């Protein structure tokens, strides 16, 4: 699913349509958004480097991590920093976002202003001037955009989204740090929303509780990755995966049922039994459902709406034999045929006219 997102961003938008836009949301309870951001950035970089992408390069607006960090990230993925500078450009809003360092440099108080990175870096000295920020972005060319930690930049994001030279854009947002209005506005602009939630919410209780500590630690390493995609026809598709943070990066897997087991084990202890024992589970599996053929030696007959004479006679004989054998009534039930399963690439609701 994460790979599907990367491919969608790689392929860009169709003629006459806005570029695909992804918002990555996380919260302090499961702060793994930056890992997902790095993963998507690395994948896109790989596509662009191999010339498999609609876009020619990446412009990264770095607000909460330094250009040096991204240089290290590219190196760790095997990219040569010198050659990457031609297609990977950074608008550095981290080193001197308010112009403090420039003022101190002018007065001679400090000696060093550079970000220290070998990548192509333009330093932004006033993030509050959104017009200047937007112009700086435009200078850097026809690219995909990645934006870490939008603050009050809805206007700038809105502007980027409508540009022809932008083939896709994505940004990271910490949901609990911004007002609902701001996050909702960015969500409206995005065609895909990826949210990282804790696998299991920690229960209210004393901090020293070992269960709570274990959950806190788990939430630093794994989370639930929920993606909401707005399709062209207006439908919304939801997808879920689990993500793990490893030393080498991040890994995505289908959601496991272990989490359901773990969630079940967190059921509060009450006086009555809410769980099934093994014997009870086995007995439930053996229950014969009423009006169903359960392999009693006869072939399972599926009612097709057209009973033949032979079938009638067979039924009558069976019925009559049974009537001779016992004085009890009997219900003979023929199970309907199974529903047709749609093809994998078909959307069963396509014919709906909403």
């Amino acid at each position, binding site marked *: 699913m994460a790979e599907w997102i990367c491919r969608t961003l790689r392929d860009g938008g169709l003629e006459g349509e806005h570029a695909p836009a992804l918002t990555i949301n996380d919260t302090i309870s499961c702060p793994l958004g930056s890992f997902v951001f790095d993963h998507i950035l690395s994948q896109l970089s790989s596509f662009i480097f191999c010339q498999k992408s609609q876009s020619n390069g990446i412009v990264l607006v770095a607000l909460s991590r330094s250009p*040096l960090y991204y240089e290290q990230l590219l190196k760790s993925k095997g990219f040569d920093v010198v050659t990457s500078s031609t297609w990977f450009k950074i608008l550095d809003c981290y080193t001197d976002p308010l112009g403090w360092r420039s003022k101190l440099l002018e007065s001679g108080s400090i000696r060093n202003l550079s970000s220290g990175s070998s990548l192509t870096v333009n330093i932004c000295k006033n993030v509050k001037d959104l017009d200047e920020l937007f112009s700086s972005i435009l200078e850097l060319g026809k690219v995909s955009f990645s934006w870490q930690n939008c603050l009050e930049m809805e206007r700038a994001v809105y502007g980027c989204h409508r540009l022809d030279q932008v083939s896709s854009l994505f940004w990271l947002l910490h949901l609990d740090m911004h007002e609902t209005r701001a996050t909702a506005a960015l969500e409206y602009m995005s065609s895909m929303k990826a949210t990282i939630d804790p696998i299991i919410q920690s229960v209210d209780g004393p901090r020293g509780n070992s269960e709570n500590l274990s959950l806190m630690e788990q939430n630093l390493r794994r989370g639930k990755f929920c993606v909401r995609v707005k399709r062209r026809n207006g439908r919304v598709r939801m997808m879920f995966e689990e993500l793990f943070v490893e030393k080498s990066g991040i890994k995505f897997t289908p959601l496991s049922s272990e989490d359901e087991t773990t969630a079940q084990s967190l059921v509060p202890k009450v006086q009555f039994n809410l769980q099934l024992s093994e014997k009870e589970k086995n007995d439930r599996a053996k229950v014969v459902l009423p009006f169903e053929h359960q392999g009693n030696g006869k072939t399972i007959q599926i009612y097709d709406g057209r009973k033949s004479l032979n079938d009638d006679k067979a039924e009558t004989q069976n019925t009559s034999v049974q009537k001779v054998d016992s004085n009890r009534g009997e219900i003979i039930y023929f199970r309907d045929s199974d529903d047709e399963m749609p093809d994998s690439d078909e959307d069963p609701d396509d014919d709906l006219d909403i």
Partner: protein
Amino acid sequence: MANAPPSTLLDEALDGKGAAVLSSSPAAGGRMILVEDCVETSGAFVVHHLLKRCLSPHSSDVVVFLSFAHPFSHYDRILRKMGCNLSVQRDNKRLMFLDMLMLERRGRDRGKTSEDVFIALFGEIQKAVELSLSHAGRQHITVVIDDVSLMEVDANGSSNLVLDFLHYCYSLTAQFGCSLITLNHDDVYSNEDRPGLLLKLEYLADVVIKVEPLSTGLASDVHGQLTVSNKGIHEGSGKSRNKVHNFHFRIKDSSVECFYPGSKT
């Protein structure tokens, strides 16, 4: 050569077993450690412990200490009992103490705005960092801020100015491999409706140390509990990455004793 000081559970939670000094790799950058305390349990002892570690005779590291809470004599008295002479360290240029309580330093009498004062303060810090790194053998600088809520008072209540200043200090961790240690009070911001300073600092910090009272109430031999959340964004030793540690503590005259719940005899 003196033996390395014994590491406590707090040291192990920060840097892995056997660590007695703050570790950082110039390639990976420094770290930000956020200490959160409350009225019931003061986290000042954590700052004193980390300060002593930074000025350990086993390293040549330098500390830039911004004090909004107490004068130099206060820390000197406490650290002397812990076996660390701050006056000597200051004379040896291993400690740069910026006493923000002094009116002249604030520049208010010169008609400067709060922003100008903080810009100048940051300039002093970066200058001290550049100067220290230019000396041979000095590789690691730690900036300590005590404390953030009083800094906000100094900024006339502007949490945005405080955040801007902390962002610039944090950028020193990437640019020069410095470490940043800040103390903040949880209960000062606990009733805020909007996402506050505390939450923003928690996002920024690589390690969050929460100092809290025991859930069971007061005790004579256990003074509270520490919860160390090590996000481990930077590589570090790798052993303490993405881990949460919880243990109890007891503050003594010259040190702090950390132990797991139930192990105190």
